[in-house]
């Protein structure tokens, strides 16, 4: 059975990666990417109203689907969330990018991507622009970039983020606050340049 193979793969690969085998990550990534992509895709084309599924639940589900149920090991899981956060970023940004080009290519002038993505409670969240700004932030301070990935793309709480990064909750809170301020300013600057 295919999933049995991947179960062993996942646990073994996570362990190998933890032990310092970088090749394990290269093998792991496509596996996780495929499952995550499918789960996220199902989510996004799902019914909009009354959706209670959370990102973390989705990642947990992917983890369970890939991992053997009896091997719920928090260290593995933390590490797994670390990988998923980066992959979710890739999936969602790619999704936003393709959606934008579709709309532009199709000549549907009605909506700009930012209008489509920004819900009232969000001051500004163009995923593609955010992705670029995050790359810039990573150049300055990679940990802050990871905090944003874990919190925004993987939906983790401050505490869980602290666990994955093995830093204190206070550190995560400080990083998060500065990263948000920095990213927001960056996006605003970019927008005013475009305008």
């Amino acid at each position, binding site marked *: 059975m295919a999933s049995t193979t991947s179960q062993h793969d996942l646990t073994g690969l996570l362990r190998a990666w933890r032990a310092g085998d970088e090749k394990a990550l290269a093998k792991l990534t496509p596996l996780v990417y495929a499952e995550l992509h499918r789960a*996220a895709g199902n989510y996004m084309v799902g019914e909009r109203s009354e959706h209670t599924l959370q990102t973390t639940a989705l990642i947990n589900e992917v983890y369970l689907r890939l991992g053997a149920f009896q091997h719920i090991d928090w260290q593995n899981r933390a590490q797994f969330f670390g990988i998923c956060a980066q992959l979710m*970023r890739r999936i969602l940004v790619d999704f936003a990018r393709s*959606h934008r080009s579709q709309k532009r290519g199709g000549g549907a002038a009605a909506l700009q991507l930012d209008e489509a993505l920004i*819900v009232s409670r969000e001051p500004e969240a163009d995923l593609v622009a955010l992705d670029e700004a995050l790359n810039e932030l990573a150049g300055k301070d990679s940990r802050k970039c990871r905090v944003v990935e874990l919190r925004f793309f993987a939906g983790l709480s401050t505490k869980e983020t602290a666990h994955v990064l093995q830093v204190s909750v206070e550190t995560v809170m400080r990083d998060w606050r*500065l990263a948000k*301020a920095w990213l927001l300013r960056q996006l605003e600057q970019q927008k005013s340049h475009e305008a």
Partner: protein
Amino acid sequence: MKPDPWSRVEQVFHLALEVEESQRAAFLEQTCAGDGELRSEVEALLAADKKAEAFLESPALEVIGQAPGMPSRDGSGAEEDRLPGSTVSHYRILEKLGGGGMGIVYRAQDLRLNRFVALKFLPQEAPHDASLVEQLRREARAASALNHPHICTVHDIDEQDGRPFIVMELLEGQTLKHRIADGPLESKEIINVGIQIGEALEAAHARDIIHRDIKPANIFVTPRGQVKLLDFGLAKSLPADTALTLTENFAETRAFVGTLPYMAPEQLQGRGVSARTDIFAMGTVLYELATGRRPFPEEFAPELAQSILHKQPPRPRELNPAIPPRLESIILKCLEKDPQNRYQRAQELLQDLRSFPPPSAIPAFLTRWTFLVPLTAVVAAMAIVAGLWLQKTEYFWRNPIGDARFQTVTDFDGAEQAAAISRDGHFVAFLSDRDGPTDVWVTQLGSGQFHNLTRGSAPGLANPSLRALGFSPDSSLVTFWFRKQDAAGSSDISVWAVPTLGGQPKPYLEGVAEYDWSRDGSRLAYHTPGPGDPLFVSDSTQRSDIRPVFTAPAGLHAHFQLWAPDSSFIYFVQGALPDKLDIWRISPAGGTPERITSHTSRVIYPVLLDRRTLLYLASDPDGSGPWLYSMNVERRIPHRLTQGLDRYTSLAASADGRRLVATLATPKKTLWRLPIADSLAPTDVSAPTRISLTTSTGSSPRLGPKYLLYVSATGTGESIRKLSNETTTELWSGHGAQIFGGPVISPDGSAIAFSVRQQGRTFLYLMQADGTGARVVANSLDLQGAPAWAPDGQSITSAANDHGVPHLFRVPLDGRSPALFVQEYSVDPAWAPDGRFIVYSGPDIGTTFSLKAVTAEGAARPLPALTLTRGARRLAFLPGGRALVFLRGGIQHKNLWVIDLETGTERQITKLSPDFDVGDFDISPDGREVVLERVQERSDVVLLDLPQL
């Protein structure tokens, strides 16, 4: 050394945030000390920070998922083409099998149990039709309450993206609708099909479930000729006591259910349906099978309705003279306009169909061949026809214990379990706590002498989920499952043995959990305690732990290995413990196991009386039992052999299958009261005193203002009784009702709510404290565990099955629908008296579970860490609201403890004797008294001697 600019920005940014806004300019002026770049960078960030509060706080996926303009399912259209290849829940969808008004069916693979199943989704065009969703749920519930070889098994109901689907048994073959297209069937085929449908209806009607839509498209025939009734989609299951409440909800749909050409007159007129409605529909099906056309063939609906109501259909023999006259009269009796003139029950119809001379083809056969074929050939042909007949209908099924002589072996006080019998039928072994600890006991039948073989030397013998005791083939040793704990606390499972006549226990099969010797003693089947219970087969001289013959999938167990008498198969019980199990068998050489039963309940202790006759214990889906069942393994029709209050807890058979031994248990529950101090200070603990009741048993006690409520068995169900001023009144009782989780009294003491399981469904009831005005306030949830009344009196909180996991829901009492409250494993809640938070139990992990809490708004609330042991679980607050009372101790024996939730201070408030097992408790409204439910399991070993065949 000068820090790099970014870390300086970071440092100043955070320092500035600590400073009051009005002081920030001055602070920056001073701190940046002329570094203008640093200052403007920090100022810009501080300005952004003010606007960034909500920025990125909703996870990206949820933002995208909610964004307008994203492709939605509604627009995607070709879902039928999209689903195959995808995975929903833990099912991989393989292909579309068919579609109809009630949904689209796909073939799918259950990735968890590694089996093929059918998934039924609602039709694409109607995903938001609430009545269809409800209908689908009703179908799942009604059908899962039925467990019958001629009713398509419903494994599960699950949901994908808010869209429910049913997981069903995957059937091969075709529906009768397709079969009829090839022309009329032969009489014997019609009778065969009729008997199987009749048996399905008999089972459904016995549970008050009316199918209401019997038609050829809903009847499936497998290549082996087995008939399966599908689509209990319109089935109406009404517990007698809820009829009034529910009828209102059903009133609207009533006229529209059913399929017109097969509808009975009373159904058409909306006069209410009964078992006889299904019998009419069955008559139309038999008519169509016999003649190739429907009894009322009109295509235009008004004409068709007129015919059904007033016109007699042509006699079947006019259309097909080959039909025997008696079959014709059976069909016409089903089609009587007045329900009074039809068969009143499926059983009567079955009787007529079964009494039909099976070889109905013989006359034609004889006229052609009488003078050509020797008589012996005719007899042989008749035997073959009769054989085929029997294979499909079990006309001659005989109750294997019908003439058994019952005898009590033990009548000790206390609990006996895990009965075993030696091959020669002379010795019986069992576990008993007669001397205090659970020990292995043995008796030579007829001697009246009982010997304790282990005398407290082997703690940890009981394991109700496997065959814990056995005899060596020569009866010289009694073997027992034993978990040996070493000093370091790790445990080691092995089979041990002690001489039947007494002696020192020694390991028998090390590292083995269960075993069975083949009848000739040449081969041993055994499993180790490893994951999936790997099953090995070896010869008598050597063990080979190298290659298991079978290993259960992850998370499942495989116990109770049992050789067939001719060694052709090894039977075993497989599934999820403790109550999602079935009997399977596998060749001793390995291969794919074959499923024998389909109870998906607590199935334990299989024994074989001969090559075909399987006896085993199985519980019903409502949790009643386990009962003794019998099945012919070639025909696979389960027959329940016992009923009543006794539960069977173990079963064993002698080698010749003529002597059985079993343990029967009767749980007894009594109520006790005990004064307590409403404080956390240690006090003396007094002994409880028994509350005298007018009923023999009492459980789930709850204290209201000046009254005591409790649950009592009525013989046919359960009731709620109220004890007040020394008088007892029955407030509510329900036929076949099981009241679970205990009743709950409203904060003002004026009303009572309780959860009931009836006919395989669950209902939350509400009534006045005097028992009047009982009504159902929730019938759409699959309730679990205890309900709790919110302190404002406006809603009731209870766990309900949410995709297989219990989640807490709030059920408003003003008629609004229930709402999900806690979205993680949560059960058995208790509200703090001030209504600010609710405490509940988390999932069982191993033998423990933890308590958790959320605020009324649903935010997590910290609690002092409390990890409790499986078994009885109940939580209650002392009136002050700070102190929570809970049960702590071993799996069976627990005491009441109280914890101060602010300080974490704990105190034990009862010191109950070791034989006092608390099942449930409650605290009086003034906090000065507790009532306790005491559970005493009385059980005995019984012997069944079957007459020689």
